[in-house]
């Protein structure tokens, strides 16, 4: 904090930065930087999570196939790269699509058939197939973030460290070991942000981070993942900025497993564990029970998809029907990064009461990822970043995306569901689309290739004088709104 003009906000950053090139950015903390440096055609509203205009002032679409975006005029690039135009949009998307870029997000844009810029402020995109969720694709997230050709070329192989965007903040300096400094972009199209400098300090340990906040060294904690520390901070009167249900944790059931391929077994597992009780006991702030692979705040969320309330008797009955009256051994692949969580310990407890012996296979993160991606597990877990429902349904349930190729780790293949989501994607009528999505959710929650366990809440505790910390459903904060 300082004089009105050169206010500085000290923010905790919780891991080593990995770079901010939209083409290959990953992990939430990096995405948060990129989110404030870049803009997309659309973006997410911090409070509601709804898609709102960003660089595109408005748009229209025909059959979910031809999308026309009308760009904002007079938007200035950071660092003197001039005005933003439609050419930048085309360049950015083509860059992702260029195999030489080797962007992992290429698949998001392969649905594009043609892109055109009839004039500097209009972009017309034609899709190969209708896609009702296309506004998510061009949002300020990963592939949707617009870069400047000249800046990219100037950076050479250091693009990830020299991001130039049109967002409210630009990257002033970075010390990959300890610190990232963002400065406000004076020419931001919505006007300069209230805070001059965002000083991100890398503090990995949650307990240390809490102490730093209490010590006054830090104004805002990007994430605090320890329930006990949240409790302390809450009691000490800090502001508990948070977003609930930002993502769901799923138990991935590998359907190629001889036991798990029986749907009754999967349902039994869902009945056997009392997630509401678990979350209330161990992490009332950080977790909530999840009942679906969609989050309740999503437009497409189907309220009447099947739910599995805690019912051990039912679980036992289902197991008996499936031929496992004495239970079986469930091997759960997990990362060792957090050790065995309390949640897992409770799961073991609950499952054992219906006779299922859950055994944890803990391996370190790279190993875990590798095995999970190859499908070498019985069950594993996945955190669904919940923003584009269509993308979620396709990547997790569509047979084309079965692992190791895609994210469908359950190896799930139900033609009925496949047809439903394909139809939904193509459907132009919003109401019918919703119906189709609801049907898909019902099928998915009946078949249970993924058992939803908990929904995660994200906390960014801050000093009381810090305002405007609105965490969106991608766990990102638009610092343009933040003030102190």
């Amino acid at each position: 904090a300082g004089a009105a003009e050169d206010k500085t906000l000290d923010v905790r950053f919780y891991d080593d930065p990995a770079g901010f090139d939209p083409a290959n950015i990953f992990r939430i903390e990096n995405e948060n930087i990129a989110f404030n440096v870049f803009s997309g055609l659309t973006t997410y509203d911090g409070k509601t999570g709804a898609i709102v205009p960003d660089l595109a002032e408005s748009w229209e679409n025909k059959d979910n196939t031809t999308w026309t975006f009308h760009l904002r005029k007079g938007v200035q690039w950071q660092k003197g790269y001039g005005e933003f135009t439609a050419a930048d949009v085309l360049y950015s998307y083509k860059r992702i699509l260029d195999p030489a870029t080797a962007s992992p997000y290429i698949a998001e844009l392969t649905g594009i058939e043609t892109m055109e810029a009839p004039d500097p402020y209009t972009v017309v995109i034609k899709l190969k197939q209708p896609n009702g969720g296309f506004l998510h694709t061009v949002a300020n997230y990963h592939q949707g973030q617009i870069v400047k050709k000249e800046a990219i070329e100037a950076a050479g192989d250091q693009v990830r460290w020299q991001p130039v965007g049109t967002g409210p903040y630009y990257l002033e300096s970075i010390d990959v070991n300890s610190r990232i400094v963002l400065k406000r972009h004076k020419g931001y199209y919505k006007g300069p942000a209230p805070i001059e400098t965002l000083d991100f300090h890398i503090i990995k340990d949650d307990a240390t981070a809490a102490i730093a906040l209490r010590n006054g060294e830090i104004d805002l904690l990007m994430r605090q993942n320890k329930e006990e520390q949240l409790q302390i901070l809450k009691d000490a009167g800090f502001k508990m900025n948070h977003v609930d249900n930002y993502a769901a944790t799923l138990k991935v059931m590998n359907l190629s497993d001889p036991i798990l391929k029986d749907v009754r077994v999967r349902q039994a597992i869902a009945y056997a564990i009392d997630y509401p009780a678990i979350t209330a006991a161990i992490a009332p702030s950080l977790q909530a029970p999840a009942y679906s692979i969609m989050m309740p705040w999503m437009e497409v969320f189907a309220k009447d998809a099947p739910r599995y309330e805690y019912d051990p008797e039912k679980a036992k009955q289902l197991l008996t029907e499936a031929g496992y009256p004495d239970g079986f051994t469930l091997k759960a692949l997990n990362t060792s990064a957090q050790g065995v969580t309390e949640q897992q310990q409770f799961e073991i407890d609950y499952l054992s009461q219906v006779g299922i012996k859950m055994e944890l296979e803990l391996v370190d993160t790279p190993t875990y990822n590798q095995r999970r991606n190859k499908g070498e597990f019985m069950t594993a877990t996945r955190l669904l970043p919940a923003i584009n429902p269509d993308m979620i349904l396709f990547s997790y349930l569509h047979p084309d995306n079965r692992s190791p190729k895609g994210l469908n780790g359950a190896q799930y293949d139900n033609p009925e569901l496949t047809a439903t989501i394909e139809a939904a994607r193509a459907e132009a009528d919003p109401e019918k689309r919703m119906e189709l999505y609801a049907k898909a959710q019902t099928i998915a929650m009946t078949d249970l290739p993924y058992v939803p366990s908990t929904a995660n809440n994200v906390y960014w505790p801050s000093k009381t004088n810090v305002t405007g910390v609105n965490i969106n459903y991608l766990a990102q904060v638009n610092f343009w709104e933040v003030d102190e």
Partner: protein
Amino acid sequence: MAHFSIPLPARRTVSIDLSRFNGIVRLLANRRVQLALMILVPILLLTTFRSVLPIAGPLETNLRAMTKAPSLEHLFGTDRMGRDIFSRTLAGIQISMFVGFAVALLSLIVGLVVGTLAGFFGGAIDRVMMTITDIFLAFPSLLLAIGLVSVMGTGMLPVVLAISLSDVPRFIRLQRSMALSLRSRAYIDAARTVKASHLWLMTRHIVPNTIASLLVAASIAAANAILVEAGLSFLGLGIMPPAPSLGNLIRDGQSYLEQAWWISTLPGAVILLIAISLHFLSDGIRQVLDPRSRK
């Protein structure tokens, strides 16, 4: 010859041969060893018979008794899942002691074999082995731990291996230096004059005379292993919970220090007690061995 015959009290030879137990008797007479045993024996008894104690199981959660301070019902209090920390500590002692013991044993055996060979034969064998030892010494132990956990998954074995691998070079060096100095002892020469085999020399003359010093090192290594396991747990590389190794208990409770000090402090105190008594034990062995301290 002027000789007055005066009956002298006959010197009686003790027929029971106590000298065989001499070492153990002297060890038990040592004050530090007594102190160590006074701590270790009750702890071991408690852990062994913990199942008959009127306490909850170490994994039993109780959502109605979460984060309770120490009381008569829960001697060490409970943690956030309502588990009885006393019971977990007892179970943890078993795991941690096993880790300590396994590490000590492994280091001892490898150190003994390799160190004896290197020290006894010297020359090329020695140089090769010492280079390998050097390589392992220069290799950060943490890296070994991560590697082992990646290959073998988490569990007792990789933890034990990871800790031993960094202890082993030290044991090898210790044993080697002792073997080196022993091999020129006259008694080895005496055995050589009758063409005793190398195996004979090593097993009869070198090992029996170094084993005690190695035991001293081993008991310290055991204490150390318990601590290292705690550190590995902190980094997510130790023995995985819910198995309540003492390291896990401390790690679990570490961030509750302000709200519930007992969760980490009490198991920590137990580690301290065990480690100190292991040190006492080693000191005791050392004292008993050291001829200078035999007054």
